C-alpha cells in the first residue's frame, strides 16, 4: 500500500541530515523538510502535516521548544523528537505534558523512524476520524433537537386549533348528530395529543441535563392537574394535595413534572365511569428525600399486570386510550434523578403510586 499521501515535515539545522531524511523516505511519504523553525512554521501553516519531526539540538530554538510551540497552534499534529539523549529532563517533561508523541534516538535507524512515523500517523488518523464522527453526531443531535422542538409545536399547534374549533362548534351547534360527531373528533384528537406528548417527553428525558431548582410541590401538582382538566369532560375531578414540608426541596423540575403528569393523566384515564374521580397527592419532604403518594379511586389494576406496568408499550386496557409509553417514561425519568416508584392496587378499588425522589438541596 502506498503511503505517499502521508505528509511528513522534518526539521533539522544540518543540511546533511535533511538530505539523508529525504533520501530515506521520499519514496514512501510526502516529505517536506525545513532547516529553520521559521521555515518549518511556514510549511505547517500552508499544508498542516499530520506528522512533524524535529531534531533536538538546534542553534536558536531546541526541538522541545519548537514542538511545544507547534502544539499550541496545531494540537492535532503528531510530534516526534530526534535526540542524542542529551537534555533528558526537558524531553521527558515535554513527553509527559503531551507535547511530544515519541522520541527517536540519534543516530536514527531508518526502520525505527519509519515505525515511529507510521504509528504516529495511525494514531493521528484514528483521532481525526473520531473527531469527524463526534462532529457529525453533534450535528445530528442538534437537528434532532430542533426536529423534536418543532414537532412538539408544529404538530401540536394545528391539533389544538382542531380541538378549539370542535369545542367552539359544540357551543354553537345544536344538532344532536353533529354533537355526537364532535365528541368523537374531540376524543380522537386527545389521543393523538397524548401520543405526541409522550414522544416528546421520552426524547427530552433521554437527553436533557438535570436542572436543579427549588420545587414547590403544591403549585406544581396543581399546575399539572390543571393541564388535564380539559380532558375530563363534564366530570369535576377532585384533587387534594397535602404537602408536609420539613426541609426545603431542590430537584429536577422537568423530570418531576413528567412523573407527576403521567401519573395524574393515568388517574384521569382510568377513572370509574359511574363515580366522581378523586385524586389525593401526599408529599412528605425531609432533608433526604421527597416521598410522594398519588392515590385515586379509579378502576385499579389486576394483580397479574402489576409487574408489567412499567414496560415499554405495555397496555393493560385495550378499550382505554393510551400509548403504553407513559409509565415507561415515568420509570426512565425517575431513574435519571435517582428516584424510585412502587405501585399498589386493588382491582376495582383504585391505585396508589409511591415515589421517592432524593432531595438535592
Amino acid at each position, binding site marked *: 500500500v502506498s503511503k505517499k499521501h502521508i505528509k511528513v515535515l522534518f526539521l533539522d539545522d544540518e543540511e546533511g541530515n535533511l538530505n539523508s531524511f529525504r533520501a530515506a523516505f521520499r519514496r514512501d511519504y510526502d516529505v517536506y523538510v525545513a532547516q529553520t523553525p521559521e521555515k518549518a512554521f511556514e510549511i505547517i501553516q500552508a499544508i498542516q502535516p499530520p506528522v512533524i519531526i524535529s531534531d533536538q539540538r538546534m542553534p536558536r530554538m531546541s526541538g522541545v521548544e519548537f514542538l511545544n510551540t507547534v502544539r499550541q497552534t496545531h494540537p492535532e499534529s503528531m510530534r516526534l523528537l530526534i535526540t542524542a539523549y542529551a537534555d533528558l529532563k526537558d524531553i521527558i517533561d515535554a513527553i509527559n505534558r503531551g507535547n511530544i508523541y515519541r522520541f527517536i534516538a540519534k543516530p536514527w535507524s531508518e526502520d525505527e523512524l519509519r515505525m515511529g512515523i507510521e504509528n504516529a500517523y495511525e494514531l493521528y488518523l484514528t483521532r481525526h476520524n473520531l473527531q469527524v464522527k463526534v462532529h457529525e453526531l453533534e450535528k445530528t443531535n442538534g437537528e434532532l433537537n430542533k426536529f423534536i*422542538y418543532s414537532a*412538539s*409545536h408544529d404538530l*401540536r*399547534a394545528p*391539533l*389544538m*386549533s382542531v*380541538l*378549539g*374549533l370542535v*369545542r*367552539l362548534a359544540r*357551543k*354553537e351547534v345544536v344538532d344532536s348528530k353533529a354533537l355526537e360527531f364532535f365528541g368523537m373528533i374531540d376524543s380522537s384528537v386527545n389521543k393523538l395529543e397524548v401520543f405526541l*406528548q409522550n414522544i*416528546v417527553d421520552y426524547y*427530552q428525558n433521554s437527553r436533557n441535563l438535570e436542572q436543579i431548582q427549588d420545587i*414547590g410541590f403544591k*403549585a406544581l401538582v*396543581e*399546575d399539572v392537574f390543571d*393541564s388535564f*382538566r*380539559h380532558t375530563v369532560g363534564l366530570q369535576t375531578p377532585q384533587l387534594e394535595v397535602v404537602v408536609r414540608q420539613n426541609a426545603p426541596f431542590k430537584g429536577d*423540575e*422537568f423530570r418531576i*413534572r413528567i412523573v407527576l403528569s403521567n401519573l395524574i393523566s393515568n388517574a384521569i384515564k382510568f377513572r370509574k365511569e359511574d363515580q366522581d374521580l378523586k385524586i389525593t397527592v401526599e408529599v412528605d419532604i425531609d432533608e433526604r428525600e421527597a416521598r410522594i403518594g398519588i392515590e385515586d379511586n379509579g378502576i385499579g389494576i389486576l394483580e397479574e399486570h402489576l409487574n408489567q406496568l412499567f414496560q415499554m408499550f405495555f397496555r393493560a386496557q385495550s378499550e382505554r386510550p393510551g400509548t403504553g409509553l407513559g409509565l415507561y417514561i415515568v420509570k426512565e425519568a425517575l431513574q435519571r434523578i435517582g428516584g424510585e416508584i412502587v405501585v399498589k392496587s386493588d382491582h376495582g378499588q383504585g391505585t396508589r403510586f409511591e415515589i421517592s425522589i432524593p432531595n438535592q438541596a
Partner: protein
Amino acid sequence: MKTPAYPVVMLVDDNGIDLYLHRRLLQIAGIAERTLEFSNGAAALEFLKNHENNAQEIPEVMLLDIQMPLMNGFDFLVHFEQLPAEIKNRVHIFTLSSTNNQEDLWKLRRNPLVKGILRKPLDDGDLLQALIKPEARRESEL
C-alpha cells in the same frame, strides 16, 4: 347578553383560525366586545409604540401567542420591557400558546411581565378566571 368586561382585547397570533376562534370565544364568554388583531409580535409592538402618548387608548388585555414568525412571543416580551411605564402598566399580557415545551413554559412562569399563562385550546372558563383577577391568578402559577 350582559355588557362585555372589556371593550377591546388585543390578540397576537399568526394563525387565522386561532384568531377567529379566540375572537368568537371572547364574544361568547362576554369578555370582549371586539378584538384588535396582529399576526405577529412586531405588528403589535408597532401599534403600542404609536400610542406612546395616548396610552389610555390602548386595550388593557393582550393574549399573546408564543411561536410566531418575524417576532415571536419571547422577543416581543423583550421589546415590551423597553416601553414606557404607562404602556407597561396599562397592558396585561396573557400568553396563549399550544406549547408544551417545558423550557418555554419555565421561562414564561418566571417572566414578571406575563400575568398569566393560558393554554390552547382556549377554554372560556380559564379565560374568565384569568381575567377577573390577573394578579391572584399569577400567584397560583408560581
